[in-house]
């Protein structure tokens, strides 16, 4: 009986305020889509870090005959110098940091180069002796590349020490900025959504102020008066957040897995449907709680005794 009445009142409010309700739905939809996108980007960053940091190496490039930089002077690194670097990598104090060391000769470097850039213009001019020999080092903890850089850069025959992670870090910085931007936009939109919900509920309460007055006069409990309005706000916000959830799933399915997945040859590092399905309930909860809070706050004014 009472439940039916409360739901009926909420339904009436929704019907009377259709245009405002639609705008609440749209604003929560857009803002929560941004929230969802931000969360997905963070998932993406974590996933990529896990995948690529394992593969990121520190390359110790040795001098080649065509190299005039730093300690090289256009002289190929001698076998002695190579052995020295190798020894440094395999003994204390560096050894504990290192997981694996591989040596890359001119020929191997040339083959890798041809694999990766063989199609590009100018690749024909590259000869094996132009590509330096190098040690490819996998670290136990990818964050500690600085240790290698410091202790090896000065050795004779070493051209440079390059931490590949720094290239990745740039990508991650871009993704991070994108996700922060998304969070910022989401926050702004959420503020708009909250204010809009509060205004809508106030409008709805104003159009029903006669009934509210009588309800208070005859002793309807505050909860009874409040609930229809809160339900009204929550209902609109829930539709918005479900739409946002749908949009997130669609983005992952069609854009990330479909478009990006195809163009990146189905790299296993992209967020998948599982991640999207984790995001959806988060959005629904955020939408529901925010709507309930702002509607409750808005209606409180009408409950003063």
């Amino acid at each position, binding site marked *: 009986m009472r439940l039916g009445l409360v739901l009926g009142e909420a339904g009436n409010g929704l019907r009377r305020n259709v245009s405002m309700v639609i705008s609440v739905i749209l604003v929560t939809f857009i803002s929560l889509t941004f929230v969802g996108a931000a969360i997905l980007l963070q998932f993406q960053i974590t996933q990529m870090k896990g995948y690529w940091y394992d593969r990121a190496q520190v390359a110790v490039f040795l001098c080649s005959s065509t190299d005039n930089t730093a300690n090289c002077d256009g002289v190929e690194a001698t076998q002695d110098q190579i052995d020295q670097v190798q020894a440094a990598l395999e003994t204390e104090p560096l050894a504990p940091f290192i997981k694996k060391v591989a040596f890359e000769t001119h020929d191997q470097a040339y083959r890798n180069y041809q694999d990766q850039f063989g199609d590009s213009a100018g690749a024909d001019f590259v000869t094996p002796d132009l590509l330096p020999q190098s040690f490819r080092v996998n670290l136990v903890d990818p964050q500690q590349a600085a240790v290698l850089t410091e202790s090896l850069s000065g050795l004779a025959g070493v051209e440079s020490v390059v931490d590949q992670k720094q290239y990745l870090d740039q990508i991650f910085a871009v993704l991070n900025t994108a996700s922060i931007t998304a969070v910022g936009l989401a926050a702004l939109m959420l503020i708009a959504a909250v204010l809009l919900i509060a205004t809508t509920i106030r409008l709805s309460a104003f159009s029903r102020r006669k*009934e509210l007055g009588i309800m208070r006069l005859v002793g309807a409990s505050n909860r009874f008066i409040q609930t229809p309005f809160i339900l009204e706000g929550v209902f609109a916000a829930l539709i918005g957040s479900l739409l946002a959830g749908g949009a997130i799933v669609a983005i992952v399915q069609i854009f990330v897995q479909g478009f990006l997945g195809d163009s990146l040859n189905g790299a296993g590092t992209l967020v998948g449907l599982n991640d999207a399905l984790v995001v959806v309930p988060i959005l629904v909860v955020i939408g529901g709680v925010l709507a309930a809070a702002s509607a409750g706050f808005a209606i409180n004014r009408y409950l003063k005794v």
Partner: protein
Amino acid sequence: MIRFDSVSKYYSGNTRPALNSVSLEVLKGEFVFLVGASGSGKSSFLRLVLKEEKPTKGAIHVLGQDLARMSNRKVPYFRRNLGVVFQDFRLLPQKTVFDNVAFTLQVIGKSKGFIQEAVPDVLKMVGLAGKSGRLPHELSGGEQQRVAIARAIVNKPAVLLADEPTGNLDPATSAGIMTLLERINLNGTTVIMATHDAGIVDQMQRRVIELTSGQIIRDERRGGYQTQAIPVQGFGLAGGASV
């Protein structure tokens, strides 16, 4: 039933009190007229009884409860024991007579069965048995006020507060309303009615409390709109002044 102990009420921004150290007691089953010019404090008195306002000073007891100590959460439950009628009826225009009365019971959570039984009963009592399906604008002013009274008493309140219930009605219709209020009073409900209608007060010969500038200047057991006795120009409880 209702007791005021030196109650003063100041509204913010106004140095003159709406009620100035008012003390009185209304007993169970009494019929009380509150008379006095506009702005003399009649409506403030009724609002204080309803706990729509808090007194600035003094203590108010209604139905054995100290209103100052009542938590906001309990106010709605307290109000279920009071019925209120206004000059402007305050009916819901889009609801039928039946639904207007039933609304009161619905919002305090009464069962459908109870409503189906109680509403026709009370409509019959106020003389609107055949008009339960009408909308308020299809009724005369007197009939609308009867609906409002039906709504106020359907929950069998101990006290009925009426703020100029005949203010918008012609004398004949007013008389009908008064007969109805009298009948309600005879059933044991305490009735407090604020009014300007001298004819009604003179005719009914009930307890009359007269307010001027927030002070009780007369409290007669069986009085008229204007007193035949010498008015007591005292402060505070003037209950001793009787015919």
